[in-house]
């Protein structure tokens, strides 16, 4: 069985389970459904515009531009661009993975896309503001400032390895 078919089947089973839970007022099932709605609402709102932007990016962004800003070894600015791009990515890693994939196929270096993906899960602006307001500005500042060197070093280490083994990311826009 194809993996996508399996996932759709599992999802249908989940829908049926939730419906039955609702019929018999089964608390555990209802609580799971509530959680699901919370996540699903975000996804339904974020994913369509995000994928429209990714598609437009694919056709408009010139390979040379991406290579210039994200692909040159001797351009340390690429880490700053990656982090800036990450902080404005709505939807965290859910959106960051397809964006990273698109960047890669436009000529971005591994260290840029790994910095981007990692930073996208850590530096989202609305999340950061929420964190600081609940856990304190000191906590959030320490956490974020401390993460930058680790992220960049980690990304460089991974790049060294992937370049040595000539690894390539999968393409996802073909049938």
């Amino acid at each position, binding site marked *: 069985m194809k993996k996508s078919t399996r*996932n*759709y089947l599992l*999802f249908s089973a989940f829908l049926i389970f939730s419906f039955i839970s609702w019929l018999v007022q089964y608390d*555990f099932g209802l*609580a*799971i459904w509530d*959680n699901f709605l*919370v*996540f699903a609402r*975000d*996804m339904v*709102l*974020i*994913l*369509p*515009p995000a*994928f*429209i*932007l*990714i*598609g*437009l990016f*694919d*056709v*408009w962004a010139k390979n040379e531009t991406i290579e210039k800003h994200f692909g040159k070894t001797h351009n340390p600015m690429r880490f700053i661009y990656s982090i800036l791009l990450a902080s404005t990515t*709505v939807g*965290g*890693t*859910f959106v960051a*993975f*397809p964006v*990273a*994939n698109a960047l890669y196929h436009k000529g971005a270096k591994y260290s840029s896309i*790994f910095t981007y*993906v*990692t930073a996208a*899960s*850590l530096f989202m602006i609305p*999340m950061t503001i*929420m*964190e600081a307001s*609940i*856990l304190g500005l000191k*906590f959030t500042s*320490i*956490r974020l400032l*401390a993460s930058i060197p*680790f*992220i960049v070093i*980690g990304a460089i280490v*991974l790049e060294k*390895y992937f370049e040595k083994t000539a*690894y*390539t*990311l*999968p393409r*996802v*826009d*073909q*049938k």
Partner: protein
Amino acid sequence: MIGLYIVTGVALVISFAFDRKKTWAGLKKGWMKFYKTLPSYLFLLMLISFILLLSEDFIIENLGQENIFLGLLFSLGIGSVTMMPGFIAYPLSRILLARGVPYMIIAAFVTSLMLVGVVTYPLEKSYMGKKATILRNIMSFLVAAGISLIAGLFYGELV
């Protein structure tokens, strides 16, 4: 969120004004990517809904370990395998802090929660490939550990 829609709308209008054909090609590409990963997204949301329900009490009960390094490893582990939105994770952390759990442990939990994604593995794999996914998550685990240790130093919880 509204910002995202405004940006998308403006980008679409500009793109259409410049080149209709290219815009359609872009929309088709975007749709293709979305369509291909939709089952993974659905599966993931389902999984997270289950895990979230089971994890909350478990976390509150288990993060306050006596030994701080054991607690660190434990919170890194829990943060890695669970996934929850910020509006649940931060108030939860606040409760933990009130219960006397060190900042270092909270930093480990929050950071690994965001950085390491065991449940997002199938989704990440479809975009980054198997090897990159595994290595990135291992790297992220180490990064989360490093960040927590630094937070521990700043709060004077380590020495």
